[in-house]
């Protein structure tokens, strides 16, 4: 019998699909029968998705140019 505690302990591997098939099946069964764990799984998945879906913001103005400037200065000083 899988308890809510067991489920929370295995949640990380369950999310990353790294539990073995038999354990996965037992956990899936628990989720179907336990509304709490279903909501926790669902909202944790959404948490990950919403961060993964974030577009990388473009570099602020000037950051790229100043970086290239710093690199060139360093390389010249070594030459």
């Amino acid at each position, binding site marked *: 019998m899988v308890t809510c505690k067991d489920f929370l302990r295995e949640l990380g591997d369950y999310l990353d699909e790294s539990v073995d098939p038999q354990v996965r099946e037992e956990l899936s069964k628990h989720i179907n029968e336990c509304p709490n764990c279903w909501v926790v799984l669902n909202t944790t998945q959404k948490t990950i998705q*919403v961060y993964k879906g974030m577009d*990388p913001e473009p570099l602020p103005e000037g950051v790229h140019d100043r970086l290239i400037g710093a690199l060139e200065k*360093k390389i010249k000083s070594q030459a």
Partner: protein
Amino acid sequence: MDGEQQYIKNVDADAELVDRARAGDLAAFGELVRRYESRVYRTARHILGNDEDAEDVLQDAMLKAFQHLDSFQGQSKFYTWLVRIAVNESLMKLRKRKTSRTVSLDENIETDEEPIVREIAVWDDNPEQRYSQGEIREILDTAVASLKPIFRTVFILRDVEELSTEETAEALGLSVAAVKSRLLRARLQLREKLTRAFKRKGDQILGYV
């Protein structure tokens, strides 16, 4: 070309650029900079929480990478190696800032403690209808910023930068088990914070007894 082939091609192309840069081809290093500067900057920005420090870290990390290209082994991906340098630089800055309290990734945490789940509520299907894109970004950034560095850093590398568990362990000098345990805690803490912003109005809140 499917995702996996594209991925393999990128790794190959990186290795070729690194070889050329090692041989003194500055344009090749410039291309590596162009490829990864945004990701390095974003990672540092997340760890440090401000633009000025993130820019310092970006410059220091790229300079170090350039100077130490010879020590890059080529067994790992160039980005994993680069991000490790950037994370170390970021943590050094954090330590300087909080002189009274040392910040370390090795900070003792009780790894066998149960993950905590308090708020259990279904989310809105479309948070975009309640919040603007800018507000959502603000909510996400604030939530990440509130995590302890040891959780925040693991979460950013795994779930924002999408490194594998093994790559994250390598980049941070942690065991795979430590990465997994910290990642789960980080995810659950964020879930908790985001639930407060995104839960469906008027629903009954459930909870573990």
